[in-house]
């Protein structure tokens, strides 16, 4: 795995390099947004860790420029924890968002999650621990037993499971699952998440809420 770290803090870069190299990754560093973009084009990394507060340009701008020509997974690493900043980052094409100070273990887990999604996108099924979703027959099994789901629940679970470990924005869920429906779908979303949680109880699969942003399916 090749990772590119775009951050102006030398200490953060050093620490991230240590953590990533310990996992066997190849690490490149960039100090400014401009240099980051050049490096990204030049070395074609598998994943990018991007700080939002860069000296020469805003991290969001870097992300938008990057998205013009690349869909490499990007993890935002920032001190800003206001949810509107997070939402803006996700809307600009970020794959995940971690606030500083961060736990190294969690950071690595998230990096892993966004890369996995990148690889297996055209598989006929999706497996998360004991959960198995077969796309062709719309069939879901948990520990080998068939799980009865309504069409909405199926669509919701499929979306979350395909992005396991990664935040799916509420806006995206509503667009993909509740497209074109009247009423207040955000209320309906909460209700369906509840149903799914009840059906997945005690399986080790959790649907976690990220306040103001969206949901994440996690398996521990």
């Amino acid at each position: 795995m090749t990772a590119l770290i775009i951050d102006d803090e030398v200490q953060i870069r050093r620490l991230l390099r240590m953590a990533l190299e310990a996992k066997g990754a190849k690490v490149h560093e960039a100090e400014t947004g401009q240099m980051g973009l050049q490096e990204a084009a030049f070395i074609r990394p598998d994943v990018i860790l991007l700080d939002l507060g860069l000296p020469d340009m805003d991290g969001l701008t870097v992300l938008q420029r990057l998205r013009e020509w690349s869909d490499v997974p990007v993890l935002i690493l920032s001190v800003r924890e206001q949810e509107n900043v997070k939402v803006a980052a996700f809307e600009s094409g970020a794959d995940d968002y971690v606030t500083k100070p961060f736990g190294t273990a969690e950071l690595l887990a998230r990096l892993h999650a966004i890369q996995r999604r990148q690889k297996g996108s055209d598989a006929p099924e999706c497996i998360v621990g004991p959960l198995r979703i077969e796309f062709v027959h719309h069939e879901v099994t948990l520990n080998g037993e068939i799980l009865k789901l309504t069409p909405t629940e199926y669509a919701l679970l499929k979306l979350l499971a395909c992005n396991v470990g990664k935040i799916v924005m509420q806006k995206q869920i509503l667009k993909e699952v509740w497209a074109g429906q009247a009423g207040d779908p955000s209320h309906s979303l909460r209700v369906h998440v509840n149903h799914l949680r009840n059906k997945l109880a005690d399986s080790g699969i959790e649907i976690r809420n990220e306040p103001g942003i969206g949901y994440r399916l996690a398996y521990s």
Partner: protein
Amino acid sequence: MEEEHRPDPDAILAELQREEVQRKSGKLFIFLGMCPGVGKTYAMLRGGRHKQDEGLRVLVGIVETHGRLETSALIDGMTVLPRQKVEHRGFTLEEFDLDAVLRVRPDLVLVDELAHTNAPGSRHAKRYQDVLELLDAGIDVYTTVNVQHIESQVDIVQQITGVAVHETVPDSILDRAHEIQLIDLGVEDLLERMAEGKVYMGERAVAAAAGFFKEDNLTALREMALRFTAEQVDRDLEDIRRAKRVNSAWKTNARLMLAVSPSPYGESLVRWTRRAATRLNCPWLVVWVEGSSSLDPASQERLSHSLGLARKLGGEVVSVTGYNISEALLQVAQDRNVTQIIVGKPERPCFWRRSLADQLIGGSGNIDVCVVRPTANNERSRSRETEPAAKTTIFNSGYGSALLFTFSITLVCWFLLSLTGYSFVALVYLMGVVLAALKLSRGPVLLMAAASAIAWDFFFIPPEFTFHIEKIEDMFMFGMFFVVAISMGSLTSRLRQRELAERQRQRHTAALLRVTQSAALAAEPAKGFADALRTMDELLQSSTALIVRENDRSLPKAPHPASTFQPSEKEWGVVSWCYVNKQSAGRFTDTLPQSESTWFPLQTATSMMGVLGVYLPHKSTIDFNTRQTIEGFALQLALVLEKEHFIMAVRHAEVISQSEKLQRTLLDSVSHELKTPLAVIQASLEGLGKSNDPYVDEIRTAHRRLQRVVDSLLQMSRLESELLQAQLDWCDLRDVISSAREAAGPPLDDHPIKLNLPSEVPLIRFDHVLLTQALANILHNAAVYTPKGSLIEIGVAFATPKLRISVRDHGPGLPPGEEQKVFGKFYRSAGSPAGGTGLGLAIARGFLRALKGEVYASNHPDGGAEFVVELNTETIP
């Protein structure tokens, strides 16, 4: 044809809006009867008792039992409001105490006799206005009324019974009624009850039977009451149909237009039109064409009565100017898509001029013209009222001067007669008449023309000192003189009057323009308003007070400094009534007419900007023109005030956005500077892995503490910036609690947690992030201040719309007496462990208050502290 089946969206909207208004305000139940004695009060009290048994708080506001035993028996066991005593000219009158009811705020109040006229000095002239205020305050009202008191029915009643009715209620209040219940009784039964003395007691019974309670009268009144109720029911049905969009009964898109003049029949025509409009279920307007001639005070009074009545009955009043009345009317009719024009039938046919009705018919095209025979009702009493205003002495009316002038001319000509001959004298007289017409009004000029003719004949045409005329040419000359004098006088005076009216209009228009210019264009608004008010004062010979609302929509304590008089303590009551009810009040109006000045609302299409007070010491009435002028001023001032308000709001928004930007920059750089080193320390600590080095543990503890402090400070600064905006969204309480537990951090890991959730947890509409943070801070607090391993209980209880979340620990509890102090900033209780900032709970309370919630702390009776969060929130179970 499709058109006819489509429900009119405006009508549906109006229906929905009516429902909206009714939902917020109280409900009105009307017990309608054909005449006294049918048992309205009895039925009302029974209804009230029934509601009381259902558990509502019912108050008997005012009930007249007229000594009827059955009725008074019903009152026992109900709460009766003591009556208010009003002193008036040495008499003590007992009145309904409106303010007491507004203070007590019962669920339902019973108010008898809706058409009652209040004693002078009460807040409102009429009791139905009291009732309207009760409804607006959200109190349900039961009331009674007889059909003869309904404004639109008054002249029919008078025709039938020959009794003039003075106490009336406008029909619009019946439209407000949630339900009208007809109390019906057969005529024979009623007469029987009368005979038994159950209606009126003693002597009054005899008098009543002789006058009003005749069988034919009663039958007619009963029919009226039944028909009126049927019409109302029909309209309710129509409303229901409309709301349900049933495609039927969409026969009319009619619109009626009534042309009024200052004639005594105006009011009767207005009532007729209202009745017709009700039957057709269509809108109606009343048009007054201001012609060239100015009106005398009596006509003006009549006109403003008619227009006022139209407004009260729910019609739209339009005033236009035009020389040709029929053309002006037809123009309005075409502009407003009127389908039917209503005019009064001319009193006497006029041979030399086509009547207005004929002119309208000639030019109406596809508009129907309906000529109605009016009845002059109430006129006797009205004209008596207005007489004092119209009465003037002979001299200042101009008749005296006319005679005096004629006399002087006669005297002068008498001396000149020998020089000039008598035919020349006729020319001198003519000149006199024309000159007089420039000064005097029409009546005196015509008198002068006649007097001159007679004087010329008597003194100058031979033979002198007789009315006899000998020569045939003299006779012709006399006839010609008479016609010329009268027509000259009449023409000249009409010209002059037109000029006067024009000049007055011009003055008003110019003043209005000046008001607008000075208020809108002045560099300093305060000076501009002062100029504007001075202009008004000069024009109306008045004093004015301007009261501008504060930004929070409350009224200020003092008038605007530009005001030219200071309203007294009592007047402020009128001011606030006018402001709240958006209607003019005070002198010359129906509301609080005892006050010194008249108050007009400063209202624009979108908002209420304040109140304008006008003190007119020299006027005994306020005529239509003056009222219109003042209303015009009020509108202009309101528009200017609104503009000022918008400018201020924009400026304020700019400041906010600037400070928001600054705040964000500051927060960003501070967070960056503090959090980056914290991140480095944390990552390094994790890099060290599990080590048993005590130094590393110390660093870890210190790091955690530092991180907590930084978080608290950043949250606090966010809270204090006043930029906190709740982002409402549906959230799951279980999500909130689990995120809060996570956010409360490691200290909570040392405590077992017990969750007491109801079996069904509804979703709540709330700001997820802020609620989570507040709860996290409370949980963190509970974890830090209690011994490790002690239980922490989280409870959720719903009492819609309130949600209570409680966090109870089993620690030492709060220091007694300091339960509420814990929410203070930087509060640290004695003996608390080191490492806290004293900000956590202050932030929790700050966030909750920003969400219109509250948090309380107390010691649980069984030990330990309990924090209770209370929120008002929307839920869907």
